[in-house]
């Protein structure tokens, strides 16, 4: 009774203070993201969540990756490549300043790249800088980079978040106060809730249209949905509650943009551990999986089936999904042939992401149907990284590899699924030195076929990027060639 009165009183107070009114948007965009970045420096101790906030918005590199994965000029207006493909000469923009007012020039480029490849570097993708033999600041607007061997993906790599240019004056404090050259500058960070960026009016290029971008950390899918409906958030570049899309679809306030990502979702198999070192067992697993049911059950039918470790939107992609059609009988036959009819006991370790947790339940059941008893173990990321990824201690796991062009991980020794076949390593060495685009494509296609033939992992589907945002907010990326929320071109319209 009294409780009811209290509710009424609060509701009345609320109505008086007009909290039911829609929030005045001014000229800002509020984006919902799932993970809070641990810090804001993409070049040191980096996590993917950092790029989602600062890439292209706050920090820029020599090149940048465009909305569809293309390499575009950024701080370097143009570049020349020597005929032997070892010397890259970058011509930098003039009049560029960092947000704290210090000028940007060739020395900053040299500093940033040398810092990233130094022995004391904590750059998470240090390998990107390995081919660099020397960085030479020829004059304030010219940088000459010499490579030790030709790298066909060098310009792409220089456009990644790990290769952005920082200033020696502010490099140490970028973690909490990022100081870049981008069209937005860091304003404040309310830990656990939101990070705010404001427009950099002194930007050297085309100025951003929005005054302000706010990133809100909302890890919970239902909270995300509620926040969207309540108008607290203008955009979820990666909407976490796929199952609610039918609800959103009917609501004309919102736009749904389904695009692609670089996330190959795989059922990773420990290739070193019996019985999974037997190719027949691995092939049986591939035959046992019904990708359609999986994609329907995990992501409401969003997601493209894949047959190897390669993104379908890439021009070197070949469709290998027909290699192992869903065929439980064939799977059982292969297992029997390998001498493992109904006797495989395995653990399926699942990290705390929806596609793994939901996909895991479905796959466990599909495997059970062919006589593989996969016991589910739900673990945290920290445990997953420790047990599965670092120590390679697992049977089966589900994970999405979201780094762009990462087929090369199959050539790594001691990588957690323990493949590293010499023939495959040879392919990757040839790829790095591929002289023409056609050679690159051919080698990449051979690599895809080899992985599929060997059934290294069960390749499931390409993770979709499902963006949901206010229909009046335009200019956001539909696809996700790199993990970023580039808001530099975003703007509001009246209706």
């Amino acid at each position: 009774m009294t409780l009811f009165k209290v509710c009424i009183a609060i509701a009345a107070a609320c109505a008086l203070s007009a909290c039911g009114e829609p929030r005045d948007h001014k000229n800002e965009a509020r984006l919902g993201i799932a993970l809070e970045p641990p810090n804001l420096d993409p070049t040191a101790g980096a996590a993917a969540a950092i790029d989602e906030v600062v890439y292209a918005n706050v920090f820029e590199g020599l090149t940048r990756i465009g909305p569809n994965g293309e390499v575009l000029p950024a701080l370097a207006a143009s570049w020349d490549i020597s005929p032997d493909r070892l010397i890259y000469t970058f011509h930098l923009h003039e009049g560029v300043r960092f947000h704290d007012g210090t000028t940007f020039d060739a020395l900053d480029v040299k500093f940033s790249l040398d810092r990233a490849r130094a022995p004391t570097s904590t750059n998470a993708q240090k390998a990107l800088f390995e081919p660099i033999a020397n960085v030479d600041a020829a004059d304030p607007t010219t940088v000459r980079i010499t490579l030790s061997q030709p790298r066909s993906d060098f310009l792409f790599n220089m456009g990644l978040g790990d290769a952005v240019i920082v200033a020696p004056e502010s490099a140490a404090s970028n973690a909490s106060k990022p100081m870049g050259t981008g069209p937005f500058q860091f304003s404040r960070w309310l830990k656990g809730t939101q990070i705010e960026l404001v427009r950099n009016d002194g930007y050297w290029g085309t100025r951003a249209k929005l005054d302000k971008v706010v990133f809100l950390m909302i890890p919970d899918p239902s909270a995300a949905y509620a926040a969207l409906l309540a108008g607290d958030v203008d955009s979820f570049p990666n909407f976490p509650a796929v199952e609610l899309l039918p609800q959103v679809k009917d609501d004309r306030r919102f736009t749904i943009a389904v695009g692609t990502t670089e996330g190959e979702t795989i059922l990773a198999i420990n290739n070193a551990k019996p019985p999974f070192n037997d190719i027949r067992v691995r092939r049986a697993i591939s035959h046992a999986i019904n990708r359609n049911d999986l994609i329907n059950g995990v992501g409401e039918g969003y997601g493209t089936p894949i047959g190897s470790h390669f993104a379908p939107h890439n021009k070197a992609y070949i469709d290998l999904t027909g290699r192992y059609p869903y065929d439980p009988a064939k799977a059982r036959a292969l297992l029997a042939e390998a001498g493992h009819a109904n006797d495989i006991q395995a653990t399926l370790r699942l990290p705390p992401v929806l596609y793994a947790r939901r996909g895991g339940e479905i796959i466990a059941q599909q495997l059970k149907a062919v006589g593989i008893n996969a016991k589910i173990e739900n673990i945290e990321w920290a445990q997953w990284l420790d047990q599965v990824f670092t120590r390679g201690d697992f049977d089966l796991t589900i994970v999405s590899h979201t780094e762009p062009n990462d087929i090369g991980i199959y050539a790594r020794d001691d990588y957690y699924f323990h493949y590293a076949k010499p023939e495959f390593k040879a392919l990757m060495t040839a790829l790095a030195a591929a002289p023409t685009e056609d050679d690159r494509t051919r080698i990449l296609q051979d690599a895809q076929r080899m992985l599929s033939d060997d059934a290294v992992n069960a390749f499931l589907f390409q993770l979709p990027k499902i963006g949901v945002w206010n229909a009046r907010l335009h200019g956001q990326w539909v696809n996700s060639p790199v993990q970023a929320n580039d808001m530099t071109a975003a703007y509001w319209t009246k209706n």
Partner: protein
Amino acid sequence: MVTYLLQRLLSLGLTLVVATAVIFVVLNVVPGDPASYMMGLNADPQALAQLRQEMGLNDPAWQRYFVWLGNLATGDLGLSYTYRVPVTELIGERLGVSLPLTLMATALSLIIAIPLGVMAAARRGKITDAAIVGATQLGIAIPNFWFALLLVFVFATTLRWFSAGGFPGWDEGPSALQALILPAIALALPQAAILTRITRSSLLETLSEDFIRTARAKGLSEAQTLRRHALRNAMIPVLTILGLQFTFLLAGAIIVENVFYLPGLGRLVLQAITQRDLIVVQGVVVVLVAVAVAVTFLVEIAYMLADPRVRTQRQ
């Protein structure tokens, strides 16, 4: 009595020190590494090792414990591995949300519980009493996260009277307060149910004591007796429970904070556990244990002041 208090103080202090050791040992057997959590799937092993070095993770555990304990004595809880800012600063920021939330929930539960408890006691055996007691049974049985979900569904998603969650920061004034209303209600309901029961039974107990009978004999009306004599005496157990609940709420709001994605202490520690930012976990747990110990001590003192029997029995 002073000696006894000093003894208790000493043993509680000892409890605190043992607690730091327990928590440190527990945290050091947790598998996982903050550095590899930060750097992710494709991390370069060399860079990873360098980061671990920078974080001071390569020192032996006992050395880290004593450094941490030494700093603790000076009020320094160390530097967060992931955020790279002092842990005290992080805890301070989060207390700015958790403390007001806990206070609101406690106040709300009192506002609901005291009148209901008094009403039930005054009409004991009647239908009102039965209804109130029944309602409290229900209140205790409802899991607060489920209640929180229902609140969001009704008041935020459907009616849109409140935002579904989040916290705009205290700079925003009224809307910051508003963001805490639904979470406070979700937290307050089960507490109110418990407090109502305590108030009721404690009042009934007091009402049966001699001095109340005397008051009645003097010709005071039922309501007067309740107000003038019984209520005040019945408040002691209520306040005790309230004190215990306060610490419980401070840490126990984890799930409710999650539903409303509030940047409170619970969320901080949950996130720190997933990121293996163990120095933050240590800090938060020690602070919470210290608060719990302090509250226990205060409750004991209050008991002693209020009830002479406890005093004499102990001596």
